[in-house]
């Protein structure tokens, strides 16, 4: 074994290499990753990627089909659909990521504490979570958004909070399993306090599962944002968002179905890509690789 391989960097690098190889053997995961990265970059650099500004109107081409100037056509105000989709990605992806981050930050500590300390606190957490899990994610999100009032920020908050119960369940489940591992017992025998045990022994061993879950929560949040915006509870027009576009497309379904189809496709493709990416990650990070 060369010296490089013996150092901790060597060990980590080797593991990353193996994981990368496994990932690259899964075409679905690779394509999904490309789509996700593409969508994120397009949203981030919308100003340069989109051919037009989302508000730019073109009264010569109202409700037109695909053409050379407007690749995906225009809406009733002559705004370019493609550009609006690209700009709309910002709202969707922002909401998707931020809602997920918020949910993790809230859910993981709750699940950790309940699962680790058990007792009445854990029972309370588990029961409350069970009750909340009875509500479908979207219903909870819609309810919360209605209370908070319509705006992208509030929609993100609502989605984040609605995503908390399933994440608590996952975090708690992982904690319950991990605390029975012998290395946690060894840490207790070492004289470690709870903070060390949770921080060094339990949490780091959950990260694969949490990463996969995050990757699967994002598409739910993206769809959720679209739903909320469609219902008028999220992004308010004229700010573009896929949900807003779907709403605006309703009166024109016969004349210009593209106004609904294209944003709809965008939602489906991006959400599907995140889902497949999450599946792929889960396969690649399978505990088999730990041994």
């Amino acid at each position, binding site marked *: 074994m060369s010296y490089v391989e013996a150092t901790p960097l060597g060990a980590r690098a080797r593991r990353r290499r*193996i994981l990368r*190889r*496994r990932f690259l*053997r899964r075409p679905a995961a690779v394509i999904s990753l490309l789509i996700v990265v593409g969508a994120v970059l397009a949203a981030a650099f919308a100003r340069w990627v989109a051919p037009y500004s989302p508000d730019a109107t073109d009264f010569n081409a109202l409700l037109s089909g695909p053409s050379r100037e407007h690749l995906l056509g225009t809406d009733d105000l002559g705004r370019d659909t493609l550009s609006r989709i690209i700009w709309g990605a910002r709202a969707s992806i922002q909401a998707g990521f931020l809602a997920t981050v918020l949910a993790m930050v809230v859910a993981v500590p709750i699940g950790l504490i309940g699962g680790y300390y058990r007792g009445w606190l854990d029972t309370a957490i588990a029961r409350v979570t069970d009750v909340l899990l009875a509500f479908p994610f979207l219903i909870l999100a819609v309810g919360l958004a209605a209370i908070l009032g319509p705006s992208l920020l509030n929609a993100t908050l609502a989605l984040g909070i609605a995503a908390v119960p399933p994440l608590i369940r996952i975090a708690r489940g992982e904690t319950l399993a991990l605390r029975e591992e012998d290395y946690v017992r060894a840490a207790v025998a070492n004289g470690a306090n709870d903070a060390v045990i949770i921080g060094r022994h339990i949490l780091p061993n959950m990260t694969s599962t949490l990463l996969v879950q995050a990757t699967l929560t994002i598409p739910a949040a993206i769809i959720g944002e679209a739903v909320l915006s469609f219902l008028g509870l999220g992004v308010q027009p004229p700010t573009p968002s896929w949900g807003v576009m779907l709403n605006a497309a309703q009166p024109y379904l016969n004349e210009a179905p593209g106004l609904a189809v294209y944003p709809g496709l965008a939602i489906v493709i991006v959400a599907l890509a995140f889902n497949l990416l999450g599946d792929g990650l889960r396969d690649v990070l399978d505990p088999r690789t730990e041994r």
Partner: protein
Amino acid sequence: MSGPLLEVEDLSVRFDTDEGSVHAVDRMSLSLEPRQVLGVVGESGCGKSVTALSIVGLLPKTAKVTGSVRFEGLELLAASKSELRRVRGRQISFVFQEPMTSLNPVFRVGHQIEEVLREHMNLSRAAARQRVVELLDLVHIPDPARRAEEYPHQLSGGMRQRVMIAMALGCDPKILIADEPTTALDVTIQAGILDLLRELRDRLGTAIVLITHNLGVVADIADRVVVMYAGRKAEEAPVGELFAHPQHPYTIGLLGAVPRAGAAARNGRLQEIPGRVPSLSELPTHCAFADRCPRADEQSWSEVPVLRQVRPDHAVACFHPGEQ
């Protein structure tokens, strides 16, 4: 005297995984006579389980199997699906190591055995039920009629293993392959299972292939022993001969590594075999044991040792066989 029941010749198994190839078994040969108990001994990774699974065709699709496995003349590796189904479970049956996971938890125990019987032997429900009770009695499960109505989780580990054996014997197979049947059981329960296997061989004439890492188990019940290392056969002999005159340094090492109760081994050290089992990702072109062997020399490092008879009915794959 008729020929061997089972003849495995030049069996090789390779797995192609994400991380490369694993040559689990390399040109393995075995033969099993009627009424014989053949013990296949080796540590983890030696290929003994893979060999057994390839006989009954239970390996995953990632396995590439070459060689020949002949049961009463029929070539199993080339057999059609229907031929294989007739043999598997009916003529050659398998008992797994973990009785916890090899029984379906949602079906009653009797029902599971019935299923096997009706599949292979076309029995009516009533006849099958009766046979189930007979079988459970055969494996010494007390109150068999009542036990047949219980679920696996209601039985202890030892009982579950007996149920597995009963299921394996249901169709009166010629060969019973048992893969580490007692490893997961307590010592006192293990003794009972070994006694049972011995009794079954005596009463029913079933030949048994017993796969284990435990030399004591082999000493207890086997007629003939095959020692495997790194996917290859290292040594083969009748049981008394192997223990009294081990030839391969690996076998000698294994025998020396086991502490024996009652022996004044307190002051002696246990025999260690330095190093570890080689990775099976490449087929070595030399003796697989060379890096751990005190007798290794140039020849060991440049050629693969072939099985040779060094004593009557005692074959070794080693360039320097001998008891010391």
